[in-house]
């Protein structure tokens, strides 16, 4: 593994598979009564959040704590763009505190990259979402979830509702994933296109043309404006959160028109292949990109994704902070003492 996790595009097929396999091993302890491993005892992980995201922060916090790391939550909201402390000064402060890893969420694209390539800080940097750029651990947890459900069953065909541990050592070769929504502003979409493609999946982005970035035709995926056509034959559909305020900047006329053309409702869900899953990174805008009927259905993995997020983030922290041996082997050695 590299020292930092900045972009899903930096992960090779082997890197990604190692993280997902490690996450599967670590996920097993989630079922135990004592969920802690001593692996990162004495190490300090800082959650540096320049932007509110309780969901992502507590996921990283739970991951670090289950590995026995010391966790410092540093909320620097308001961001350095306004009057607050600059990114550099904040980084120097964390360096002085001896942070072994900094998990950073920042409204400005590239801020984690800047932190990792500056001489401001010595520890590992984990991108927990930067502007409209990337959110690599979200893509990893999405891939983890897909792998559990979709990775090559007997005969290579997908099998629906497989369980924990399934998919270990496998990738997403040949799986068809449809990602729907505000691709232009979505760090989740960018990270997923990179990672899912690396893992062998075929990704189709679906959005109104206004919510696709210029140059998207150069991305390693297909692009469609037509949701209904893209749903047929896909193995997973991922609905991105769409902020209704986007209509004020004329990205689409009304919420109603958006959900009619690009929302997932029961009728559209029924058109999916039987084994296909419905994913959402959360928080969901029920009634906008997804109806309650779909969100609450057994095919929607949103809650499962949250649980998987902790396992994947444990794996990332473990591997970045020097886990050379398989995570759970280390754990067993400790246990047997």
């Amino acid at each position, binding site marked *: 593994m590299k020292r930092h996790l900045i972009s899903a595009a930096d992960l090779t097929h082997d890197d990604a598979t190692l993280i997902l396999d490690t996450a599967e091993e670590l996920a097993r302890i989630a079922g135990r009564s004592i969920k802690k491993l001593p692996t990162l005892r004495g190490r300090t992980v800082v959650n540096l959040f320049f932007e509110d995201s309780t969901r992502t922060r507590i996921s990283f916090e739970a991951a670090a704590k289950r590995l026995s790391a010391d966790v410092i939550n540093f909320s620097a909201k308001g961001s350095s*763009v306004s009057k607050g402390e600059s990114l550099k000064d904040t980084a120097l402060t964390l360096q002085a505190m001896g942070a072994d890893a900094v998990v950073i969420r920042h*409204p*400005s694209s590239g801020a984690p990259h800047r932190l990792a390539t500056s001489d401001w800080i010595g520890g590992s940097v984990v991108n927990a979402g930067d502007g409209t750029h990337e959110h690599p651990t979200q893509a990893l947890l999405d891939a983890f979830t897909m792998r559990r459900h979709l990775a090559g069953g007997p005969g290579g065909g997908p099998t629906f509702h497989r369980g924990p541990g399934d998919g270990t050592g496998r990738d997403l070769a040949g799986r068809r994933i449809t990602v729907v929504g505000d691709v232009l502003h979505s760090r989740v979409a960018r990270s997923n296109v990179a990672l899912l493609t690396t893992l062998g999946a075929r990704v189709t982005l679906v959005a109104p043309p206004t919510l696709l970035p210029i*140059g998207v035709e150069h991305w390693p995926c297909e692009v469609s404006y037509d949701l209904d056509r893209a749903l047929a034959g896909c193995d997973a559909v991922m609905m991105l959160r769409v902020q209704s305020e986007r209509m004020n900047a004329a990205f689409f006329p009304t919420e109603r028109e958006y959900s009619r053309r690009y929302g997932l409702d029961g009728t559209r869900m029924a058109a999916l292949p039987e084994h296909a899953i419905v994913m959402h990174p959360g928080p969901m805008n029920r009634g906008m990109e997804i109806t309650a009927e779909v969100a609450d259905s057994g095919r929607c993995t949103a809650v499962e994704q949250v649980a998987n997020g902790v396992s994947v983030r444990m794996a990332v922290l473990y591997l970045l902070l020097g886990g050379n041996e398989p995570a759970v082997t280390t754990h067993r050695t400790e246990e047997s003492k």
Partner: protein
Amino acid sequence: MSTTLIRGAQVLGGETRDVLIDGGLVAAVGTGLAADGAEVYEAAGQILLPGLVDLHTHLREPGREDSETVLTGTRAAALGGFTAVHAMANTFPVADTAGVVEQVWRLGRESGYCDVQPVGAVTVGLAGKQLAELGAMADSAAGVRVFSDDGKCVDDAVIMRRALEYVKAFDGVIAQHAQEPRLTEGAQMNEGVVSGELGLRGWPAVAEESVIARDVLLAAHVGSRVHVCHLSTAGSVEIVRWAKSKGWDVTAEVTPHHLLLTDELVRTYDPVYKVNPPLRTEADVLALREALADGTIDCVATDHAPHPHEDKDCEWAAAAMGMVGLETALSVVQHTMVDTGLLDWAGVADRMSFRPAAIGRLAGHGRPIAAGEPANLTLVDPAYRGVVNPAGFASRSRNTPYEGRELPGRVTATFLRGTATVRDGKLV
């Protein structure tokens, strides 16, 4: 005043001549001229150019003396081979009155390193709403002829039209920073493949091109002249080429960095590459070089934009836009235009001295190297190769995108009205 003899230089890159300077003027150009007690500059293998003229410099004084002053900026200009620079109006206070432009003009005279020709703001406070007292600035001691809200676009079509019309009374020119504001709200870099991947808000070429198209039509309509600042896209070149083919009085400049650098560099997220207008694509760079070579683009202007270290030592979105350029401009032009065979040294003299001086209506600069002309001269060693080290800059700021890059050519001497401001590559 003492006399100076430049011995054996290639005048405009052509024939080898001796040039005798006396009393601030070129006294003689010939061969085998006698030194007669003159201070001698041995210039074999070097190119003698008319002193360079920059139409677009940010000297930051008054108001932002932490990034540059007229003194430090003119010292940087002299090292870069410039004998005249146009100081942009976006200072604090804005150069929108006769008082401020005269202050800047006087500071330039006191510096002694380089003539400073203030640019006046088009509108009060660069706000784009009300015309500044253009006539008062034109009639002031500073004799302003170039007016610009640079940094901001005069986006209101009526204000732009009136400004273009009004300056005809004193042979002025409006230098437009072409940037449609609505299309560039929050924009961080060129809109294209790279911005899409990096998740940085795009700055479309059309935001520049649509304003240029409107302005050349307005200039034609009212029979005035318009100058396009830092043209950066292939599409802008096409519009200017078309306007010139109509015989309209349209001129344009390109910066050295837009002749060399592309938006691929933004992948580093290093704000040293953050600039307005943004770095564009390879295709744009090649179109700009071609247009500078064929004269569609009239001149090179540095858009020297000093910023203190802290304004670049941060994340991309928080960083200031701009690059210093005075001390590297000629090297970048040699690298991109001369060494590529697109332009000869006479062409460089034209694009970096004759034409910008003419656009700015600057007397005494951009003159031929001939007896009786003011001795504003620049001596260049084109064989020199050096790695850019900002620690050696005379500018107060260090925000160069070329640090660590090897560039050709070096200004060995600069003469302002016969007095050396630079000798042996060092400030006098």
